[in-house]
């Protein structure tokens, strides 16, 4: 029924050049809708609250969104591969409890544990990828199972919220350089990373495998290696999200990770990343993460109950996927 992305983009190129711009706009429709939503939210927010268009506000909002952005970066890589990673919830919880129980005032010990947490994230993710490939299992079920296992281990290490994070690491999130705090620099770094990564051999292979696994395999791509790297990176970014999250909470929590699983998918989908693989850009995901975070601010300045926030994010999510499916249909019609 649905034509693969690879086939479609080839055929799109054969259109007469005169109507090509329409095709290009339609292909980016979900991303453009996301930009429009963000602009709208910022406009409403800015008109109701003074001081929205200041560096302080940008610093604050980026810090609030950064955990989700890191988690959603890994999720975007997995979604572009055509998979899904539910285990990031477990990895984030595990990362925060290790940090809260092992970090000390001595920066070198803490740095060592940070490296351990990041390495653990990559290895556990790679293990997911290995299971998916070797046993030919569905990513949804494998990562659901490892989510449960990691969450369980986190609860064994630290049964309830607690522990402590050294002050110097908490201060990292508000450290400034040229008036911008570290989360803003991290945001720029994420964009740079994606700009570099998508053009690398690994990035291209992941995208090609997500577009059409069979033809990627026939072109000599090792699917096992692709899965290993894809889910490994997802685990790595989840571990990174945990390290950032503890600067915001100042403690570890064995259950906090689950709050990022589905929002990470939602942020990517709002930003125009396709759940069918092969299509998506991290810039869209980051905008999606901002949309989801700023809805909270909006609900606050509109003086309505904060309980409206989930309703608003659900409606926005639905609007975004409807925009995507309209774009898909239009693309299909254009080809025919």
């Amino acid at each position, binding site marked *: *029924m649905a034509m693969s992305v690879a086939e479609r983009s080839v055929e799109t190129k054969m259109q007469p050049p005169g109507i090509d711009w329409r095709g290009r706009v339609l292909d980016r429709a979900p991303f453009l809708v996301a930009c429009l939503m963000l602009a709208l939210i910022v406009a409403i927010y800015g008109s109701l609250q003074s001081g929205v268009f200041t560096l302080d506000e940008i610093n604050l909002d980026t810090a609030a969104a950064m955990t989700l952005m890191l988690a959603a970066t890994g999720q975007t890589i997995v979604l572009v591969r055509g998979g*899904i990673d539910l285990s990031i919830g477990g990895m984030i919880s595990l990362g925060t409890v290790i940090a809260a129980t092992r970090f000390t005032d001595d920066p070198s010990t803490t740095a060592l544990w940070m490296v351990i947490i990041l390495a653990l994230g990559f290895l556990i993710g790679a293990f997911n990828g290995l*299971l998916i490939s*070797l*046993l*030919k*299992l*569905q990513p*949804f*079920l*494998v990562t*659901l*199972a*490892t*989510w*449960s*296992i*990691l*969450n*369980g*281990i*986190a*609860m*064994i290490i630290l*049964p309830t919220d607690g522990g402590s994070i050294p002050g110097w690491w908490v201060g990292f999130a508000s450290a400034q350089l040229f008036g911008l705090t570290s989360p803003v620099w991290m945001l720029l770094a994420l964009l740079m990373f994606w700009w570099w990564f998508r053009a690398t051999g690994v990035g291209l292979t992941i995208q090609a495998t997500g577009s059409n696994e069979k033809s990627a395999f026939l072109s000599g791509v090792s699917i096992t290696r692709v899965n290993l790297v894809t889910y490994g990176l997802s685990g790595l970014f989840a571990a990174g999200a945990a390290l950032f999250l503890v600067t915001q909470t100042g403690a570890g929590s*064995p259950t906090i990770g689950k709050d990022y699983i*589905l929002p990470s*998918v*939602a942020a990517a*989908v709002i930003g125009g990343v396709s*759940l*069918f693989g092969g299509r998506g850009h991290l810039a869209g995901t980051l905008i999606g993460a901002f949309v989801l975070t700023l809805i909270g601010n909006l609900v606050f300045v509109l003086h309505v*109950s904060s*309980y*409206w*926030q*989930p*309703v*608003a*994010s*659900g*409606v926005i*999510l*639905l609007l975004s*996927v*409807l925009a995507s*499916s309209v774009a*898909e*249909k239009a693309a299909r019609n254009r080809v025919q």
Partner: protein
Amino acid sequence: MSAFLARNRLIVLAYAGMVVLLLVTALFSPGFLSISNMRSTVVLAAFVGIVALGQTVVIIGGGIDLSVPWVLNSAAIVMALLCGGQDLPLVWVMPLLLAGGALIGLVNGVGVAQFGVPPIIMTLATNVILQGLILVLTGGSPTPSAPALIQFLSVGRIGGFPVIALIWLALTLAATLLLSKAAFGRHLYALGTSATVAEFSGVPTARTTILTYVISGLTAAFAGMLLTGYSGQAYLGMGDAYLFTSIAAVAIGGASILGGSGHYLGTVAGAMVLTILTGLLPALNLSSGALLVVYGAVILLTVSIGSETFSGLGGKLRGKAN
């Protein structure tokens, strides 16, 4: 008989796993096989089993329903609010809330079947929207206690049997007939195996897809009302655990998450396995963290047994033996 075994290998394995687990648990805590303990195990498993009925049907059709937690929770809260602890309003409240659950399912199904929204996103969206609406409605405060009639349905007994176990048995029979005998069942397996082939073979794919989500909405809403009776009160977050357990029960019961295979009879065993595990761990002095680790390991183990790699291996071994 051997043909039956070959076709339903995974379901048979799920029941075998359940029996082994029962025996192992009985070894560690001798009182586990007592009548009263088995009764409470079945009651707890029934809640998972009823929610997982809808989930099974949706998954066989190739979808997934993430809206289960808040459909369940919404039904529980609204029932408690509308009844105010009285039995009489149940006459109209129960049908109303079942219809409400079906309506949410209809919205999910139409989004998936008509608008091409991926099931994960569609049902995730309805879930958070319901969550928000219920929070707005209650303002986050607890609700009145459950009517006595609902409490009877979930903790009462008829002739020594828990009422909810009888309800579960009836639902299992109905689901088995629906999946194995009705045209809907044939359509469902065709749809889950390949939507394109099913469509070209004249299967009403859109209608079948929508119906799966309607059934899931119905069972989740029903389970929500019963669960209120069990805990004596409706509270926020009471459905959250059922997302994981309903999917896990289906997976342990041998259905493929890709759709097209599996049966509710397998899910019944899956629900029992999950509940027995919950009872086993206190006997072993293990924490709730350990329970999550075991849950994950059991899911990995069962889906591995069901995977192509393993069945391919089994086939090869049998080939050699012949």
